[in-house]
């Protein structure tokens, strides 16, 4: 059972544009929602994270929007740059078991 569904699988955006990746979750007990960025040959790097008591969190060009009632959250990358080209994973976890459940990932390509 896939508990975190991520879309799209791949995304191509022009330099300077907005990249948007969407995720939906099933378990309403999840209480921590991180996003990870992974470059080829590297491990996932924590990008930004949110807890369900907040509807939006912004860090630089990266913003998480969180809709608790719809059980959905999304990552917005403003002014996308070629260096942002990577695979992005949304995820969710429960405080009591520390197990991160990952989405399948989105391969983002920013055209120069």
């Amino acid at each position: 059972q896939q508990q975190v569904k991520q879309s799209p699988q791949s995304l191509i955006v022009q330099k300077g544009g907005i990249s948007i990746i969407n995720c939906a979750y099933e378990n309403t007990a999840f209480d921590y929602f991180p996003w990870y960025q992974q470059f080829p040959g590297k491990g996932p790097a924590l990008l930004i994270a949110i807890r369900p008591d907040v509807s939006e969190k912004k860090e630089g060009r990266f913003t998480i929007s969180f809709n608790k009632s719809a059980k959905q959250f999304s990552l917005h990358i403003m002014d996308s740059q070629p260096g942002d080209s990577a695979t992005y994973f949304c995820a969710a976890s429960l405080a009591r078991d520390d197990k991160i459940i990952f989405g399948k990932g989105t391969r983002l390509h920013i055209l120069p």
Partner: protein
Amino acid sequence: EAGVTQSPTHLIKTRGQQVTLRCSPISGHTSVYWYQQALGLGLQFLLWYDEGEERNRGNFPPRFSGRQFPNYSSELNVNALELEDSALYLCASSRGSNQPQHFGDGTRLSIL
């Protein structure tokens, strides 16, 4: 601050063999997590160790095991290797339960 370090970076084994992967957490981190990133299956939680104890386990057979040492470093052992064990094995660490997890660059295990 040094990140999570894993060794070796690459490993080639044959079916039926046993393998040990190693992980050193970020200084000050007491929790260590192991994940498997297999092609087509995404990132899957394997094990969580905290203060030397196994705290949680993912849906993997008992031939996947590990331990955490007093200095908080950890080993992942896989016995009776099967072809489908070919994957990138990622280690993450955190300051404790319900804290952000930071990943190493993984060990690429290939089973022939």
